[in-house]
């Protein structure tokens, strides 16, 4: 059923061909330099984007979550993803009801401030009902001084019709962008896909290393690293990834090992608290994270468009694609087994229907498996509330005692 049934690969238990990945990574790493800093320098998002803009870079604001980034790179557009811009939500409240998720609200708040860094337009990939409507609301009712593009991601169980459709809409997006950015160079697209391919491989390898306790980043640093993909140029990001040391030796065993699933990683304060508590997130199934990296190592891009189509269908199961629940559970079970996690943290964005529906089944199934689960609901506000702290502490104590929750 390749490539529609990517989960089969996991079941064959060859998730991440590690020896290949490591070999490739060593070559990449050698080619960079031998003078790596031990300290990882992740550029600040706003500073980085401002610098890019100052240098004349075209920047497109991209709402969550799945879109063909390589196609944008090939048009020399830098995608700046808009997930959870900080600050108070004020302007967006005039346009959106109270029961809309904070990602949608923060996205709109950002757009309404007409940020200067966005000069190439906004792209709304089709993710959920709320973002779908936000796209047309911004484009057709609110109005912004830059173009608004949309991109439909097929939903449900994929089949041959989905694959053909995806390839056609990719082509349509290319044609649309050509109107404003000139003809697409096939060589540039190929180069973009090759770069994307290298990033994917390095990301797969880092995730594998994370599961095996083979690097020294804190929880917070790890997610800063992962999230830098949301705004950095591909090559800069690859360089950054290549600077991360992967240890030969397995590190010190943490107090507890967690898998985190949801849309975004927990906020910095929660991550810091977990770090202080010697709890390690050893695997992640996040829409902003590993759900955007193919489930297996793909072949080198030969035909770039074909490569992009295959890549989409090789992404892990995700609530926003609305595939079968069982597939998602099987996938998570594999991550759980590989990462030897002791418990699962559901980091739930308030009002997120796609995740809330899936979660019901997943949490129940995990409890049946005897796996402790903590469900934290977030409105993406900064800080760690007393209540959150107490719940996390109680959860950790249960993990210490090995008592299923």
């Amino acid at each position, binding site marked *: 059923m390749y490539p529609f049934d990517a989960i089969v690969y996991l079941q064959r238990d060859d998730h991440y061909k590690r020896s290949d990945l490591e070999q490739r990574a060593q070559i990449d790493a050698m080619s960079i330099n031998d003078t790596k800093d031990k300290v990882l320098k992740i550029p600040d998002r706003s500073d980085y984007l401002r610098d890019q803009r100052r240098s004349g870079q075209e920047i497109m604001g991209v709402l969550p979550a799945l879109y063909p980034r390589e196609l944008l790179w090939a048009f020399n557009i830098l995608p700046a993803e808009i997930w959870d811009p900080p600050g108070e939500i004020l302007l967006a409240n*005039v*346009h*959106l*009801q109270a*029961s*809309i998720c904070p990602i*949608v609200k923060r996205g709109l708040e950002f757009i309404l401030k007409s940020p200067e860094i966005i000069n190439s337009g906004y792209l*709304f990939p*089709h993710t*959920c*009902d*709320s973002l*779908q*409507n*936000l*796209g*047309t*609301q911004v*484009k*057709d*009712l*609110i109005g912004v001084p830059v173009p608004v593009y*949309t991109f*439909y991601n*097929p*939903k*449900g*169980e994929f*089949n041959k*019709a*989905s694959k*053909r*459709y995806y390839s*056609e*809409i990719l082509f*349509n997006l290319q044609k649309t962008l050509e109107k404003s950015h000139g003809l697409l160079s096939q060589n540039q697209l190929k180069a973009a896909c090759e770069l994307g391919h290298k990033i994917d491989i390095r990301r797969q390898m880092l995730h594998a290393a994370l599961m095996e306790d083979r690097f020294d980043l804190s929880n917070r640093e790890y997610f800063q690293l992962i999230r830098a993909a949301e705004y950095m140029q591909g090559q800069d990001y690859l360089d950054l990834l290549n600077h991360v040391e992967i240890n030969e030796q397995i590190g010190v065993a943490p107090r507890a090992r967690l898998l985190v699933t949801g849309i975004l990683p927990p906020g910095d304060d929660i991550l810091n608290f977990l770090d202080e508590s010697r709890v390690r997130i050893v695997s992640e199934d996040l829409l902003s994270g590993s759900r955007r990296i193919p489930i297996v190592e793909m072949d080198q891009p030969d035909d770039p468009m074909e490569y992009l189509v295959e890549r989409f269908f090789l992404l892990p199961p995700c*609530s926003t694609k*609305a595939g*079968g*629940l*069982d597939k998602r559970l099987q996938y998570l079970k594999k991550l759980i087994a590989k990462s030897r996690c002791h418990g699962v943290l559901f980091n739930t964005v*308030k*009002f997120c*229907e*796609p995740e*809330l*529906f*899936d*979660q*019901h*089944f997943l*949490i*129940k199934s995990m409890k049946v498996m005897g796996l402790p689960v903590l469900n934290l609901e977030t409105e993406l506000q900064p800080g760690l509330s007393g209540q959150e702290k107490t719940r996390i502490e109680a959860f950790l104590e249960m993990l210490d005692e090995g008592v299923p929750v």
Partner: protein
Amino acid sequence: MSLSAKLKYKFMKDYGAPALMSLQGLKRRRSRPTPSAFGPPLESNARLKEILTRHYYLSRFVPGVKKVAWVTSGAPVELLRVFDFYTIYPENHSALVGAKKQGAEYCGIAEGDSFSQDLCSYARIDLGHMLSGKSPAGKLPKPDLLFCSNNICQTVLYWYKAISQELDIPLIHFDAPFVSDRQSEADIRYMAQQLQDMIPILEQVSGNVFYMSDLEAVLKRSQDSSRTWGNILKAMQAKPAPMTIFDAFGHLAPIVSLRGLPVAQDYYNILAEEIDDRVSKGIGAIRDEKYRLIWDNIAIWYKVRYLATFFAERKMNFVTATYTNAWAETIDHLNIKDPWNSMARTYGQIILNNNLKHRLGLMRRMIDDFSVDGMVMHSTRSCKPYSVGQYDLRKAISTSLNLPSVIIDADIADERVWSEQQIQTRLEAFCESLEDTNRG
């Protein structure tokens, strides 16, 4: 298919159901009096009740006779009709639960099983029904197939996935790409292909064979019913309007859940005749129609009577709604001779799958065609595709047309979300502003 089940179904269809209808008739005679602000009630109400009661009643005897499919309101049901599925519409059932003011109870059952309170209440009610077996309709048959399309929302896909998982029932999903600008050829091809790919699965589940001529006949009936429904709604352009949109919320049920069946067409012929008669005689749905309003979004099922009375007493009548129009709006795209592509056009462009520029244009036309004086928008907590964007739609309409308007925050079927005092204050302020405009 067992012979005894078949005989029992036939007996119930021919004798049991009609006997039940007679009993309903006796009960009806003792129903509540109509408030004086209303005109004479529609006679077709009785027939409507009969049809729906019969549909739910007979569904109990269907297992073993026909395959049962649970279907979403926007799904291309015509394809299922060809295979003789008995169709149940969970959204319709949830609305019924809501109308009986039992929504909170059913939602509570789902929430007790740890479904989030932030999910659409139609879904929670249905999950509550699935978990408890409760239903104001007595008992619903378990599905052999689930059939859903995300042309109304992505929510239904999650909801049906949950049922599919829980009951281990196959799910057929019709993926309808959202129309952000206009439908592309790729969109049409994709949808048409999916429809054709469903045939072998439907043949397998139903045990029946597909014939194109059957599909053509069903599509023709479906198109006729939708057109008749559209004409009934159009007749509300008359002054006074022969029915209120609150009536139409009820009379919508057959076009949603019996579409493509002769019973729906027969029913709308009767209703159309009555409506035409009322128009020719100048009979209005409310006694003294002074102001004409448009309703946006799904009904607030547990408050239909309250709202109808509130407005009728102020000589205000809802004469049109984006919601009731949804099952008539795109029917002209249907071409019986080109079923697959034209079904893709018809089902892919319905209001909730279409962009807000389209919705704005439609609402402006409705306001004009129906001589509308004011607009009430129901912002429903349950439904993101209907509600996200309403604030800006309101602004665009109010400013360009200088139309008084109000938004009320409530929910379609979970009565816990209703805040009577706050809503009444808002509505009263709206009515005052409408009266101040000297419209009407």
